[in-house]
């Protein structure tokens, strides 16, 4: 690439990063260029690290960065060269994959992923070219993966294909089918002191991880080739997964939730430090005479810098009231884990959950610190949350809370209500909410829905929002901002 082309590519790259929420300023782009020049373009991995070092500001941005980097600085163009010993059927591909995974040869796994895409990933006829139209319709597009795959294998695929599908390639190769064999193979190949169940368990985990890495390679390869076909910018906008802290709670996948749970511990530490710092800054007022005199010894007995008395941190009580129905459950689960991790910041944390009636879940949540995986399911099965069905009824929920646990609230209590305010047609029961608000010091409502959809359909959010302050809380980033802002000193 010429110097001009490199500069242009870097600028496009920076713009794509910006679109994914990574703030890359002009300064960083210049730094990145300097770094790229120092490292050179010969080694792609080093170039990747050099750019990462110059533009990234946190580990959470790394997956996004990698995705965008692969698009803008691809390892290869076009389809991979097909060598003589390359597999031709899914079964052969699986065999090769087995060998590569057992050997732990990541480069080979990646090559096989490319082959998999080559053979089985192509689909559709190109929309634009007339030549493509003529030859392509015979294959029936997406409906016949085998036929389209053949088309991808022979000749010039870019002319005929409209895209590469990881989903299609994976459903053809079915790497999951390998798992049992892979486990046995790993177990034999890596024989060590462990035996019996433990070795099985270990091999099983490694097999699953290996298959997951193959799947990821296939996806990346499909993205890369589709990017070549359709233009990088468009793919970059949609195909690179967003950062974990920007994923909306209401439509996160299971993996994204697992990712979020991992974020709980670090996030709680960050928040705790932030809260502590705020308390420290609040230290002003009365002079601590003893410590002032002691410090004055350094300045020859002249008290130059007074020391203020440290205010005793008033640790508030926190009460959480969580909607555990359907789509809101994930959000509630995350917030419960987060407040549990933050529990040393409060004198007391009590958690309540509801679907159509309310029950206390403090103990369940506490146990959830050690086993966060299925907290939401456990809460739903073990606590008494509903009389019938799993649709939320705010009327009954607020009423049972006010009747059963009204004495929990006091002048030092802060209440967080987590829910979308969708009452499924039931009356909103504003009186009960008003009663809560009257007793507690603060009541805040965190709503995982977009503010624009409050009050649409069966949502009573706008009416609740008139009684207590309500905040949109769709992502981890919004949540952590709210937590520091709302929690009292």
């Amino acid at each position, binding site marked *: 690439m010429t110097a001009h082309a490199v500069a242009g590519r870097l600028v496009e790259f920076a713009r794509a990063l910006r679109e994914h929420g990574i703030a890359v300023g002009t300064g960083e782009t210049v730094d990145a260029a300097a770094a790229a020049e120092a*490292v050179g373009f010969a080694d792609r991995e080093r170039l990747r690290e050099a750019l990462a070092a110059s533009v990234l500001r946190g580990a959470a941005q790394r997956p996004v960065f990698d995705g965008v980097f692969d698009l803008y600085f691809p390892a290869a163009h076009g389809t991979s060269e097909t060598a003589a010993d390359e597999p031709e059927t899914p079964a052969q591909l699986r065999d090769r994959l087995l060998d590569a995974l057992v050997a732990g040869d990541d480069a080979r796994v990646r090559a096989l992923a490319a082959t998999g895409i080559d053979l089985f990933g192509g689909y559709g006829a190109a929309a634009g070219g007339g030549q493509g139209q003529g030859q392509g319709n015979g294959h029936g597009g997406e409906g016949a993966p085998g036929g389209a795959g053949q088309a991808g294998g022979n000749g010039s695929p870019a002319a005929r294909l409209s895209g590469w599908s990881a989903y299609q390639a994976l459903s053809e190769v079915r790497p999951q089918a390998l798992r049992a064999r892979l486990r046995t193979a790993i177990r034999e190949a890596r024989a060590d002191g462990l035996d019996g169940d433990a070795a099985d368990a270990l091999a099983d985990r490694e097999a699953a991880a290996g298959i997951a890495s193959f799947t990821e390679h296939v996806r990346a390869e499909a993205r890369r080739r589709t990017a070549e076909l359709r233009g990088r910018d468009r793919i970059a906008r949609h195909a690179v997964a967003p950062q974990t802290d920007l994923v909306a709670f209401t439509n996160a996948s299971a993996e994204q939730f697992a990712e979020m749970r991992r974020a709980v511990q670090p996030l709680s530490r960050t928040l705790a430090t932030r809260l502590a710092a705020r308390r420290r800054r609040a230290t002003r007022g009365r002079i601590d005479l003893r410590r002032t005199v002691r410090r004055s010894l350094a300045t020859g007995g002249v008290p130059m810098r007074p020391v203020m008395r440290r205010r005793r941190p008033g640790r508030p009580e926190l009460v959480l009231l969580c909607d555990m129905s359907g789509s809101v459950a994930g959000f509630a689960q995350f917030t419960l884990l987060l407040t549990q991790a933050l529990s040393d910041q409060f004198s007391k944390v009590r958690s309540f959950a509801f679907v159509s009636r309310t029950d206390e879940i403090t103990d369940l949540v506490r146990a959830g610190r050690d086993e966060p995986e299925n907290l939401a399911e456990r809460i739903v099965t073990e606590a008494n949350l509903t009389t019938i069905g799993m649709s939320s009824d705010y009327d009954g929920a607020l009423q049972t809370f006010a009747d059963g646990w009204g004495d929990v609230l006091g002048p030092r209590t802060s209440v967080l209500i987590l829910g979308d305010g969708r009452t499924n047609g039931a009356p909103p029961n504003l009186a009960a909410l008003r009663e809560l608000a009257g007793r507690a010091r603060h009541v805040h409502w965190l709503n995982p829905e977009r503010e624009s959809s409050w009050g649409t359909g069966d949502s009573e959010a706008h009416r609740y929002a008139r009684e207590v302050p309500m905040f949109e809380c769709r992502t981890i980033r919004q949540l952590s901002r709210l937590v520091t802002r709302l929690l009292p000193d």
Partner: protein
Amino acid sequence: MTQSSTSQTVPTSPSGSPEQAPQFASVDEVVERLAGAGYLASNAAATTVFLADRLGKPLLVEGPAGVGKTELARAMAAGTDSELIRLQCYEGIDESRALYEWNHASQLLRITAAKDESWDATREHVFSEEFLLSRPLLTAIRNEDPTVLLIDEIDKADVEVEGLLLEVLGDFQVTVPELGTITAARRPLVVLTSNATRELSEALKRRCLFLHLDFPPADLERDIVTLRVPELDGELAASLVRVVGALRELELRKSPSIAESVDWARTLLALGAETLDEDTVRATLGVILKYESDQRKALSELRLDRVLSPADAAGSSVS
């Protein structure tokens, strides 16, 4: 401290800081020299260290505890024959601990001793090198030999300290009002480490190269363990790394770090374990997992928990 700047505005370095020759010629050389110092650098670490040296920017290293952040700085110092100057940050650290401080007690003594002197003469004396207590940042800037400045756990320090670092790391110069501006005689290689307990300010991050150190891939970790505990059998090291890798996949409160892998290797060596069998793992799990709940989870996930069932307990060798 060869300089004795007594006038008001004499900088320590007379000619500013000229472009100095980089320490490393290539990324490969970084890998080599760090390995020579006992640190096996990943591709990311080596590239970033190379850039930090080449571009003269500070290096901000982030990552979980025990992945070798501080160790990287040590190895950089050893690999480049530099002096390592370390500033350990903590809550409440301030300018007088990080940069410099006037030695008030001695100054007062000096003033009392010189009763007959005029005030101008006294002032010149009192605010001279003799009474300046140099703290790590100033020491690093004034050092004329190659220096690696390690600012450890910057996230523990308050936000105000970052402001102070901005001046120091941006221009490698320090202004002491009574002495004038002191410019670095030689740019130190700066390494900042952070455990990410607090979000660092955008301004500081922008001035740094960012390196996230994470748990290394299995083969690198095996090499690290073998390098640190060379007496350990290679195969045992491999299975140890496998188990640790599997443990990191679990959702634990505290994942085992490299430091813990090395500790575990030492423990196994001390116990004279030949292979990593289930009993050994069970008996020594406390070395790598520090929470009881984590241990319980690890045992059940790795299906080692048969020790808890009474049928097997008799045959177990756990004391």
